[in-house]
């Protein structure tokens, strides 16, 4: 087994063909981390997602893409032109031997190649096909182009991030893709129960927009129950209970959710509670209505402290506060170190030592302390076409010359 899980893995026995681009390559990455046998199927020349940054050495070369590396860890890689007649036949042979196919093409594309769910199920009735697209397989926007910011915007995620006077901010990274990918992985394992029990597969349709809307926390609930529409208000959350305040050396994320009395006592002990000890501030409704004043007083106090003081002392008193840190600091975090969260990547060669976050789990059944880097385009062609599908070396050369692989 190529993943960090040795021998019998959590998901042994699940083979996944991954046709997905950056929209859902994280989906089968998660399942590969859990020990599924994932084969990345790229068009000859490689997946366009290899052109996405950031790049190692800031060198915009397809083999140096760090986002591609991250999203394709623990997978094996082959090249195959599924638009080519013979490529299509080979894909069907692979699908026959697989449990799952993951794809992110525009709706109807696979049908056009006669590789739609009906065709795949004829070849392999148990097959689960996961389609992850911007807006799903149906509806007036099904053919719209998407990207992480389009999904975030339409899904309702961006509108609450940012300052009222400025443009909405998109949550950093590919949050929409990651949420859709997590839902995809969950969907596959749900469909898997039926696959095992009945031998019948499923076509799963995930809309990235819907996945985002499903994770908005308060927004839709507030609207449906109170007709309230949340807007941006800087770091202050919609409920006025969370905000970020400056300290001597940085910023602290605080909440006013719990333990008001303890907080006021703490500030008073340092002579900085001002009028917050007055009885009317003890009433939460009053406090939240006049939260501006509370924050002003708190800020005069936090500015006298370091983030570390407030974090450590606060946590001793069970305040769920934390410093706002840059990602550099996360790499050095003692909690992550203690739990071995960043693991080594095998196969990157001696030129650099990179580590990646493992999945956020410690299993009692398996230990994970390393992973395999993403495959180069077509790296495992021989192993899979010759070793597993029974092609000869000559067949392989011919397919290569004909640009099928």
């Amino acid at each position: 087994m190529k993943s960090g899980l040795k021998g019998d893995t959590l998901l042994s026995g699940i083979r996944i063909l991954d046709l997905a681009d950056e929209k859902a390559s994280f989906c089968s990455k998660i399942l590969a981390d859990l020990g599924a046998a994932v084969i990345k199927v790229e068009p000859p020349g490689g997946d366009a997602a290899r052109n996405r940054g950031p790049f190692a050495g800031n060198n915009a070369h397809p083999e140096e893409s760090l986002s591609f590396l991250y999203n394709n860890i623990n997978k094996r890689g082959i090249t195959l032109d599924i638009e080519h007649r013979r490529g299509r036949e080979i894909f069907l042979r692979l699908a026959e031997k697989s449990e799952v196919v993951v794809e992110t093409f525009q709706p109807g594309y696979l049908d056009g190649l006669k590789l739609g769910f009906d065709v795949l199920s004829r070849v392999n009735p148990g097959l689960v096909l996961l389609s992850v697209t911007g807006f799903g397989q149906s509806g007036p926007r099904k053919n719209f182009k998407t990207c992480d910011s389009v999904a975030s915007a339409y899904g309702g995620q961006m509108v609450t991030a940012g300052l009222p006077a400025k443009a909405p901010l998109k949550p950093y990274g590919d949050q929409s893709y990651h949420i859709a990918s997590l839902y995809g992985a969950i969907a596959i394992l749900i469909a898997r129960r039926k696959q095992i029990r009945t031998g019948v597969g499923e076509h799963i349709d995930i809309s990235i927009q819907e996945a985002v809307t499903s994770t908005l926390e308060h927004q839709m609930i507030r609207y449906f129950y109170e007709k309230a529409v949340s807007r941006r208000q800087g770091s202050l959350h919609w409920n006025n209970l969370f905000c970020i305040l400056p300290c001597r050396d940085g910023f602290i994320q605080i909440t006013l959710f719990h333990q008001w009395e303890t907080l006021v006592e703490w500030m008073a002990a340092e002579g900085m509670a001002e009028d917050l000890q007055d009885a009317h501030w003890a009433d939460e409704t009053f406090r939240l209505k006049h939260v501006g004043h509370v924050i002003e007083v708190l800020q005069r106090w936090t500015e006298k402290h370091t983030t570390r003081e407030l974090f450590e002392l606060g946590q001793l008193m069970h305040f769920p506060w934390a410093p706002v840190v840059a990602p550099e600091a996360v790499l050095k975090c003692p909690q992550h170190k203690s739990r071995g969260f960043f693991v080594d990547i095998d196969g990157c060669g001696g030129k650099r030592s990179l580590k990646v976050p493992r999945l956020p789990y410690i299993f009692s059944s398996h230990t994970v302390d390393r992973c395999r880097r993403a495959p180069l385009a077509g790296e495992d062609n021989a192993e899979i076409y010759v070793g597993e599908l029974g092609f000869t070396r000559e067949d392989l050369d011919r397919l290569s010359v004909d640009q099928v692989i």
Partner: protein
Amino acid sequence: MKNRMLGHLRIIDFTRVLAGPYASRILADFGAEVIKIESRQIRRAAGAYRGNYDNHWNRNKRSVTLDLGRQEAREIVRLLISASDVVIENFSPRVMFNWGLDYEKIKAVRADIIMVSLSGMGQTGPWKDYVAFGSTIQALSGLTYLTAYDKNQPIGVGYSHADLVGGLYGALAVLTAVEYRERTGRGQHIDLSEYEALCTTIGPAFLDIMANSGEIVPDGSPGGTDAAAPHGCYPCRGDDRWCVIAVFSQEDWAALCRAMGRPSWADDPKFNTFQKRRKRKKELDRIIAKWTAARPPEKIVRLLQASGVSAGVVQNAEDVAHDPQLRSRGFFVPLTHPRRGDSVTERSPVRMGREAATHWKSAPSLGEDNEYVFGELLGFTRDQLSAYIKKGVVF
């Protein structure tokens, strides 16, 4: 018909607030029998997350009441566990242990039990007892720092995004362990850290720092290091109306120039490569913003999408609730609560085949399923149950 794909799975649910309930809701939506243990202690800790939020996050679940402060209640929990497949909880690490319901103990009750413990920092490590809400974790992970206009004023996402990510990983943990148990007969404990969960969503940023020994400075642009330029969020006509536009290719660029009525710019040597457009980002953003500001976002997006350019409307909750795309897919479904009346909930974004869920049960009222669970499942007589109620073990 309610989707029954997970109909064989019984889950004992100790979760509260958001991350844990979201995890078990995902499974309940597919027919898993999720039995929420409502103890006085759990309800106190949940605080403001009752009411409408409770209805939303606990739909399709069952509810029993038990005062876990009492030994007899914990005995009943052990009986329940012996008749179940999964235990899921999101307390601080010490709580289940103090109740004698930690994995070592419940494994003795049922050897193949699956237990998922979802906590802020995980069950081990120097920070294991730290208390954390979603925003705490967002601050610690780098997400809040990176979601900002510049590095001098961190802003963040504006809500507890990390809890939802933690919940998704929680549901995935259960399903993974179920798959493993089905094949091997073995249960297990999964220690899930929400802090780690959120960090997995910014993996490439960590790799960037390690590989390039650099820092990442937030600049408010949605693309980050994406392969699009221009790529931004632009003001449109109307009150707080915005759109996003991402130009990934030369064809996209030409289409945007045509849409803006400047077709000759497509080949203008100032802008005709990705590198040049990225370098002149500020200048381009100003030009585009001037064009978008005079038009409603829907019109801009329709125009650009017709030429295959990635563009989208920044929607607020009201827009989302009336979104024709979501409406056409029946994304919002009625949810009727016996006391709260009619409302709406979003369906699961996991859609498959004919077994699609169309009927949704509102969150259970407190102890709604006491009779079913204690009577039918555990076989208590009416007298036994009344005795427990009298003693306050069941309330």
